[in-house]
Structure formats: structure tokens, C-alpha cells
């Protein structure tokens, strides 16, 4: 088990290194330069432009800049923002908080509602099943920004139960501000997870060992939890992990619609203004989060299914 986790961690570090190089390099391949942004589109004398370039090391060789950046990153120093002339770390800190809370809240909603609804659909069958399937179809079909507009119009403007925009101050206020965004974000993923849960549970319910357990007189409750649910967990975990990982990228749209000032929205802004340091920092954070989640999912497999991790440490 320990070697399994250790190998996973090694894989994580290698993935991050490669990703960091790709992230750093990709920004340079993109057209345009921060000069236009730094001059505000005004025409400046060439000496001034040259001094700006020197100030931001825009003309240094690529590998030099990559090395400078990488060594900085290891010390959690992501450099300086061109636009705001401040340390990237201080600019990102509040935004990471908001995005993290949003993703956590959404993940909770996705897992809780997805798994619960999917299980109910599988266990009850009949009309309940159809109703939940229908609800799921609507959920999958509605894009997050449309959901955002509807939620804002109904719950924020008309009913006034939630604020229209903003991340809020303090934990409780923040959670209140994030309710609508979390719902908008979770909607399609929750529907998807409920579908997969339903399918997995139904597959397990049809298995022989379940019938056997029932004939042995084991209470239905235990049959469901130990024999059905636990076995269905592998595909559910896979999909759940993918859904949560996709939240990281999907949050951009919701952050924009609700004016949350999170990482995703900030990334788009920084790309538009060629604020290189910010783009690289946020990209690296997102890649790290994605890789970490996948690693956690792998570890979860090992916990759920004891067969995984014992057989030569694969997958």
C-alpha cells in the first residue's frame, strides 16, 4: 500500500514538472506581447519601450527565464504581476480561497445529490426512476451560464434570497454568496453522476452474490450498503473524480457570471492582458489540483477495492 502511494506521488511530481514546462512555454507561443498592455495602447518613445522590456526581462533567453521561474515557484514565489505591479502570490491568495470554497461546495452538491438521487432511482425503480432520469436529462442539457442567469433572476433579483454577485466576506457570508454559483456549477455534473450511480447500482443489484445475500436472510439495508453500494463505488468514484476535476475548469464561466473574482475569471483576464506571471501561476495551480485529485481517486480505489494496489502496484 505504501509503495503504491509513494509511486503515485513520484508520478505526480514528474507530471507537474512536465506540465510546468508546457505551461511556461505555451504562453510564449501565443501571439501578442505584454508591451501593448504595459503601454496602455499609447505610442511611447523607443527608449521607454526598451526600458520596460528590460524591467520585465522580456528579452532574456527562454531557458533562463524558465529556470528563474521554476526556482521561484519552489519557494512559492510566482513573480510579479505586470498589470498590478504586485506579488502574484498576494494577488492569488484571496482568489484561491473563493475558488476552493466554490469547488468544494459544488463537489459536495455533486456527490451528495448525484449519488443519493442515482441510488434512489436504482433502488426504487418505476415512476421515481423515470422522474429522476428526466430531471437528470434537464440538468445535463442546461449549460452553466444559462443556469446562472435563471438562478440570478429568480432567486437573487425577484425573491432576493441570495446576492446577485460577489464572493462575500467571512466564512458564513462567503458560503451564502456561493450557494447559487455552486448550484449552477454542480447541475450538469450532478445529473451525470446520478446517471452513472444508477447504472452501476443496477448492475450490482443484478449480481448473483446479492441474490445469495438476500436468500441468506441478511437485512436489505446491509445488502444494499455492503454488497451493492460498495461494489458500485468504483465507477462512481471514477466519474465523481472526473466531475470534480472538471469543476476546476468549468468554474470560469460561473465565476464570470456571478462576479466571484476567482482563479478562473482571473486567468481569463490575465490571458487577455498577457500578464504572463499570473497566467503561468494559475495554470500551474490548476494542473496541480487536477493531478492531485486524480491521485486521490487512485488512492481511493485502493481503499475501496483491496485488490487494487496489491497486484504489482498497478494501475
Amino acid at each position: 500500500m505504501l509503495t503504491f502511494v509513494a509511486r503515485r506521488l513520484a508520478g505526480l511530481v514528474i507530471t507537474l514538472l512536465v506540465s510546468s514546462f508546457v505551461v511556461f512555454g505555451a504562453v510564449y507561443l501565443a501571439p501578442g506581447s505584454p508591451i501593448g498592455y504595459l503601454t496602455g495602447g499609447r505610442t511611447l518613445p523607443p527608449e521607454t519601450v526598451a526600458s520596460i522590456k528590460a524591467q520585465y526581462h522580456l528579452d532574456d533567453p527562454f531557458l533562463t527565464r524558465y529556470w528563474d521561474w521554476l526556482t521561484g515557484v519552489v519557494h512559492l514565489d510566482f513573480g510579479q504581476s505586470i498589470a498590478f505591479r504586485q506579488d502574484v502570490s498576494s494577488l492569488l491568495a484571496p482568489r484561491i480561497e473563493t475558488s476552493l470554497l466554490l469547488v468544494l461546495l459544488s463537489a459536495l452538491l455533486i456527490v451528495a445529490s448525484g449519488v443519493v438521487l442515482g441510488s434512489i432511482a436504482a433502488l426504487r425503480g418505476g415512476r421515481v426512476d423515470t422522474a429522476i432520469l428526466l430531471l437528470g436529462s434537464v440538468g445535463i442539457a442546461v449549460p452553466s451560464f444559462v443556469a446562472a442567469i435563471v438562478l440570478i433572476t429568480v432567486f437573487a433579483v425577484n425573491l432576493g434570497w441570495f446576492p446577485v454577485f460577489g464572493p462575500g466576506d467571512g466564512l458564513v457570508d462567503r458560503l451564502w454568496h456561493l450557494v447559487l454559483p455552486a448550484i449552477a456549477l454542480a447541475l450538469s455534473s450532478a445529473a451525470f453522476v446520478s446517471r452513472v450511480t444508477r447504472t452501476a447500482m443496477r448492475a450490482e443489484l443484478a449480481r448473483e452474490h446479492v441474490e445469495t445475500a438476500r436468500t441468506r436472510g441478511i437485512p436489505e439495508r446491509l445488502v444494499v450498503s455492503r454488497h451493492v453500494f460498495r461494489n458500485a463505488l468504483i465507477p462512481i468514484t471514477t466519474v465523481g473524480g472526473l466531475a470534480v476535476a472538471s469543476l476546476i475548469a468549468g468554474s470560469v464561466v460561473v465565476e464570470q457570471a456571478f462576479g466571484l473574482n476567482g482563479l478562473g475569471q482571473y486567468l481569463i483576464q490575465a490571458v487577455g492582458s498577457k500578464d504572463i506571471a499570473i497566467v503561468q501561476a494559475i495554470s500551474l495551480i490548476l494542473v496541480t489540483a487536477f493531478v492531485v485529485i486524480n491521485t486521490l481517486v487512485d488512492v481511493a480505489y485502493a481503499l475501496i477495492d483491496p485488490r487494487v494496489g496489491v497486484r504489482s502496484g498497478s494501475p
Partner: protein
Amino acid sequence: MESIEQASQHTSAVRRGLAAAIAVVAVLGSGCGASAGGSSDGDGAADDQKAQTTYSTKAPTGAIDGFTWGLPYGEPQSLDPIKSYGDSENTVLANVCESLQRENPDLSISDGLATFKQQSPTTLVYTVRPGVTFSDGKPLTADDIVYSLERNRDEQLASYWAAPFYNNVRSIEKSSDTEVTVRLSRPDAVFNRMMATAAGAIGERDYIERQGKSYGTPKGGLMCTGPYALDSWQSGSRITLKANDRYWDEKLQPKASQITFSFVTDESTLASALTSGQIDGTYDVPAAAVSQLRETADGGTLTFGAGTSFFAFRPTQRKGPLADVRIRQALSLALDRKAIARVIFQGTAVPSVTPASPGAWSYARKTFQEGYDRLPKPTFDLDQAERLVGQAGNPTATIRIALPADQRVYADTAQALQSNAQRIGLKVKLASLPTNEFNNLYYDPKARRDYDAMAVQEYGAGVAEPIVSLSEFTPLSDYNYGDLRDPAVTDNISLASRTYDDDKRAEAVVAAQAALVKTEGSITVANVLNAVYQGGKITGAPASISFLYYPWAARVGARGG
């Protein structure tokens, strides 16, 4: 002069998606809603003229604890006056930092932190106003003035206002303890007016030197003389201003103790925030939100006032079909400006052929009005347009037009032009560019070579001096995207910029304008009005574009009964 920072914070992907939803709302809204304010079907001339001379909103009845204001173009990049040349920056800065001269709500100029005297055609003397202190209590001195102005001329600092406004300044000296003398290399009738903008903003020298590069950032803050002081700036979140107890102007004491600025750029979210009251008001009301805001539940008001902005397709220096004046005239005739102003701009713009908006007539009004009346009326005539295309030899080359991807008005107006151009036999291709790439076109002539024209909305620095907008169509300006060299325009603008006599200057400007319109150096679509929305809680904000430099927030207070 364009407000480039305007577009720098939008997200094109989300916008396109929301555009679909909003299009439905807007179209329904424009169909059902009455044509209140701005122009109505075609014959809105009376309304339009009225808006262009509307400068204020209903006065408040009393004080208020605070209010929240929106910045639709997003968070300011910097509040340092030398870097504040955009709507977001100036909307905030105007209440904190004051300038040598003051631009009033009616766009006239009067003495601000200094009294102005024209000693000779090339010598301007500014006498420090006595009794003025910065918000930390230190007195305003001639040293602070010289230092603040000179920052604009320091190449290392790369001030956005340096060119062209400081081009004719030879020296700025402290001529006595209370006097600053500016010597010009030639007469410059625009300079003093620019001293009423952020180009002439004065800050405390000691404080600026102490803060160095951080001045104007969330870390360094500001130290100025205005009715409000910068209280806090949470990057990405909000900016808070606090009333300045030491403010010198008795007649303009702030009525709100605190102002919070929110950076909501998404048009739909902003509209919702305004209708729900989470944001109390905003300038730069997005066209898509207008129909929703005309009638809000809490009695909010949408007011249209004098503006200096124009929307145009500006030909670049490329020698394509647009190099032929007949093709430019044909495209101008193919624009249904009335429909565009009504549907796309939702009544917030007035059809026009000139970049010099009537809102910019702050002197010699009669001369400007006569000049405007003599201009050809905006006409929509596809037959005539087709004839001109024929006369020009029916060019088959594609006309490429670049536009910013982020706001609907650009895409909608360009598409209207494209479909009508097709009807008259011209091939038009639209290139929707992300903000950064589009902004490149403003200062890189090589990048402009790929396009025949750019769709722009510019505001002539927000001052009521048409020379600023019109000079961009001459070699006198770095923003002469079309490399235009019409002597009739250039010589008249050059003469106007040297002429202090208001009437004579207006005559030269009018002559330049006529020449520019005749050769369609700018295929102008409309003059955009200045819109301000105030929710049911507040009133008093100026309706004109003076909000960029006048301490507008000091006028805002409780709406009352």
C-alpha cells in the same frame, strides 16, 4: 482618443454565450418598451439635442451613509494619474485627485487647484489656490504642482498623457512660492483644457516619492486634495473611498460618507445587480441593459447626457478598396444609422457622420451648430451606394474589418454593415479579435496592415474640445490609423490648436470637420450619448461625460421623497 482600458477585462467566450440570451431580452424589450429618452423612430432629433445639452440629474434631498457604484469596464489597472486614461480609472480617480483646472458638469473649464492666467501666447501662469490641503493635512504648494506635472514628461514613467498633450511644453517652473509658469514652444489652445483632466492632476510630492513605483496601486494608495480619499483597495473585489473632512471647496462638500466601487464586467450580471439594488448606480451603462433599466421596480432612473464619444469604422493605412473615397462613401450610405441607433444602441447613440459629437461644443456653440447643420445628413441609400461602387470600378477585393470581440455593439453594427455591403456588391469580412490582439492595432502599424478598417468607439479624451478627436485624422497625431494627409483637415486643425480666440478656433475646427466628412476619413456611425443609471436610493450624479474628471460623487446624495 480611445479608451483602450475599456475593453481590456472582458471574457469573450462568456459574452458570446450570454449574448444569445440577452439578445432575446433586448429584442423583446425594444419591441415592448416605450421610446423614452434618446432617439425614437427616426424623428428623435429633439430628444437627441436635448440629451446632448443635459448635464445633471435631479438634485439630492440630503445626506446618505454610502452607496455602491459599478465599474462596467472592470477593475482599474492603476490609479496613478499618469496611468489613468480609461473609464474605470478616471471614474474613481476624479473623486480623489483634483487637477489645476476643473471640468464642470456642463463641460466648461474653470479654476481648480490653481487660477489660470494667459500671460502670453506661449506663457501660462498658474497661481496656487490658497488654503488647500491634501487629505493628510499637508498644504498644497507650487512644488507639488511642478512635481506632479513633470511626472508626465518623465520618459521613464511612461505617462499615458504625455503625447500629444505635453508635446508643446518647453518648461514647467516654480516662478514663485505660489506660482507655476508653463512655457510652450508654440501657442497651444488645448493645453489648459487638458489641465482639467488627469493630465493635470496634482498629488503630494513627498508621498509620491516615498511610495515610488507603488503609487496608485493597492499597496501605495494616493495622496490628493479631492472630496474623497482612497480608503481601501481589495484587488479583484472592490475599492472604497471615504469622505475627506479637509476638503477645501465649501460648495461641493460630499453628501455620502463612503463609496464602494464594484468591478462587475458581465453585462447580464451588472443589469441584475442594478435592478436588485446590490449596486446603486453606474456610468457606462451597457446597451444590452438599457431596456431592463428604463423601468425598474425601485424607481431607479436612467438619464442620457452630453457625451463626446463616437462610434466609427476607421480606415487603416492599407491600400485596399477603402483607399478609394467612393467606396468609403458607398459604405457610409449603406449604413442604416437610424436602425442601428435604435436597435443595437437601444437609443443610447445618435446617428452621425462626424466624430465631433455635439456634446463636445463647450464654446462658440453657434458656430459649431451652423457647421453641423451644413454637414450632409446621415443618409441610407443603397441605390446611390451601388452607383458609387460601380463608378469605383466594382472592386472585388475583400474588405477586412477588425473589431473587438468583447462587446455586442461592435459585432452587431459590423454585421449590419457587412450584410448591406453585400447588397451593393462589396465583399466584407469581419475579424473579431480578442482584446489584447485588437489593442495591438492601436499602436502597431504593421499589425494594422492586415485590415482595411477598425471598428472603434472613441471619446476624444472626454473633453469638450473637438480638436482632440479630429486631430487623430491628421499626421499631427500618433493615432492617425489611416495615415490621412488631407491638408484641408491637417492645416485647419493645426491652425485651430494655435488659436486662442474661441470663435476663430471654432471656425477652423468646423472647416476641418467638413473636409473630413467630405472624404469620409472616418466612416462615423453615431455619436454615443453618456448614460448614467441611479437606483431608487440615490440621485445627483452628473449626466455628462464630465464624470471622468469632475468630482461627481460629491454631488450624489439621498433621493428622498
